[in-house]
């Protein structure tokens, strides 16, 4: 389809000017534009976090409250998930290892899989679903009901009080939750191993500790800080900058989970590349 525009020429006659249809280019242009706008404003938001975190006053009480909400209240969900992952992974891996006569490697293989990759990533995804969406929805709802404006007029820095405390709590709590889920996951694996056989806890855990190395534990632990930070900052960004109205609250919660989860995979991919580089 072509676009025709009628223009008046200098001699007063109407002239037709024909333009090619450019809708698709416009759409893709605006999508790319919006993507870069979003990335740049998220980066500015994250930089503001680092600026505000070192500036007094420090909101210790609110941070403790948020750490309790984000960390302690997530323990049951993370614990149950960790146990099931350990149990299921053991049950599923046993037949394959048995085929190759390597059943005795089961505890070591499960432990390495759980600690290096599965528990950190699955816990982070659950964390994005529970905590990321919670932060996004809460801040968006505060935005809609003018609570953030009310903080501003009572001389409180809402960014410091709401965003810094939540992002910091998410960054510090996720690694602890992952350690907790690792322990519960290994217990699940122990139960899984003993469903078809009899292995003492001493033998099981000594096999695990013999197979695990520093390079298995340390990078897996460090990357969870980045997962927690990404989930916290994306949830806060989406909530704090939500559009007014109830639709905005839903969108903020939803996009917090979607982008938080996506960032977990991206960070994981980068972390694996860096770890592999040092291993080689």
């Amino acid at each position: 389809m072509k676009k025709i525009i009628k223009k008046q020429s200098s001699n007063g006659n109407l002239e037709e000017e024909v333009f090619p249809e450019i809708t698709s280019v416009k759409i893709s242009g605006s999508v790319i534009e919006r993507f870069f706008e979003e990335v740049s404003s998220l980066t500015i938001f994250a930089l503001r976090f680092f600026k505000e975190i070192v500036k007094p006053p420090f909101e210790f009480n609110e941070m403790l409250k948020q750490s309790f909400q984000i960390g302690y209240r997530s323990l049951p969900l993370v614990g149950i998930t960790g146990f099931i992952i350990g149990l299921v992974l053991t049950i599923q891996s046993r037949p394959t290892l048995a085929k190759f006569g390597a059943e005795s490697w089961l505890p070591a293989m499960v432990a390495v899989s759980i600690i290096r990759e599965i528990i950190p990533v699955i816990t982070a995804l659950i964390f994005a679903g529970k905590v990321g969406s919670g932060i996004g929805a809460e801040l968006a709802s505060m935005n809609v009901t003018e609570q953030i404006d009310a903080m501003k007029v009572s001389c409180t820095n809402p960014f410091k009080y709401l965003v810094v405390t939540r992002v910091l709590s998410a960054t510090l709590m996720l690694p602890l939750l992952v350690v907790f889920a690792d322990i519960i996951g290994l217990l699940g694996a122990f139960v899984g191993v003993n469903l078809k056989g009899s292995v003492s806890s001493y033998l099981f855990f000594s096999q695990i500790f013999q197979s695990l190395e520093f390079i298995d534990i340390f990078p897996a632990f460090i990357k969870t800080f980045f997962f927690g930070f990404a989930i916290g900052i994306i949830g806060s960004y989406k909530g704090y900058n939500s559009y007014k109205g109830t639709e905005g609250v839903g969108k903020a919660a939803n996009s917090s989970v979607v982008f938080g989860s996506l960032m977990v995979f991206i960070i994981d991919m980068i972390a694996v590349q860096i770890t592999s580089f040092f291993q080689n």
Partner: protein
Amino acid sequence: MTTEATPLKGNNNKRNNMIVVEMIHVKKSFGENQVLCDINLVINKGENLVILGKSGTGKSVLIKCIVGLDILDDGKLVILGKNISELNDKELMVIRRKIGFLFQSGALYDSMTVRENLEFPLRRQLITIPKEKMDMLIKEALEDVGLAETIDLSPSELSGGMRKRLGLARTLILKPEIMLYDEPTTGLDPITSKEISSLILEVQKKYNTSSIIITHDINCAKLTADRIIVLKDGICAAEGSYSDLKNSTDAWIQAFFE
């Protein structure tokens, strides 16, 4: 009645003539939408100024500019003798502490109880306040608005009128010199609206505050206004007392009183 945008002098006879807020040729737009075109107004100490106008004429934007939630595009805003555009962040914070803002929705913190809602501004601004003094201030603020018995309830357990009154108590606890009310009676029944209007008057008498009241409620305007300004197309289109405007021959102004 003024029909064009000239600096308005206020009701100088009634109060002690000290100007607390002055807006001179104030302009504010959002994108291509020019909301405030050329606002000129003054508010004297202890005066209640009501701003009337159709929805979307920039009434709320005007008071948000005063409290610093929106930034002016152009013009001069003088609060308590200080030109806002010339102040640094610290000086601006000092001015902000003297301004109370009652939001249309009350803007209560849902995750906090009534007591915590009142404690919040006190803790932020009077960091070293002793517990006994804080309890006394909270009790006094709640008694002022008739909500003493709700201290341990959460905002979700309060009615619309109670939420408005609690919002007012939270603002009053810091003893502001200037009060800004954003549609204080919207969504309330006529009896509760009258109670809120009476409360605005009581607050003015007790704390000698100067107030700007944004409202569509003509009964609220009648009860509370020392002076009324009508906004139209981003300018102050008319000014006068309630009776001046009620007796106006302008059909557009008369429409507010029908």
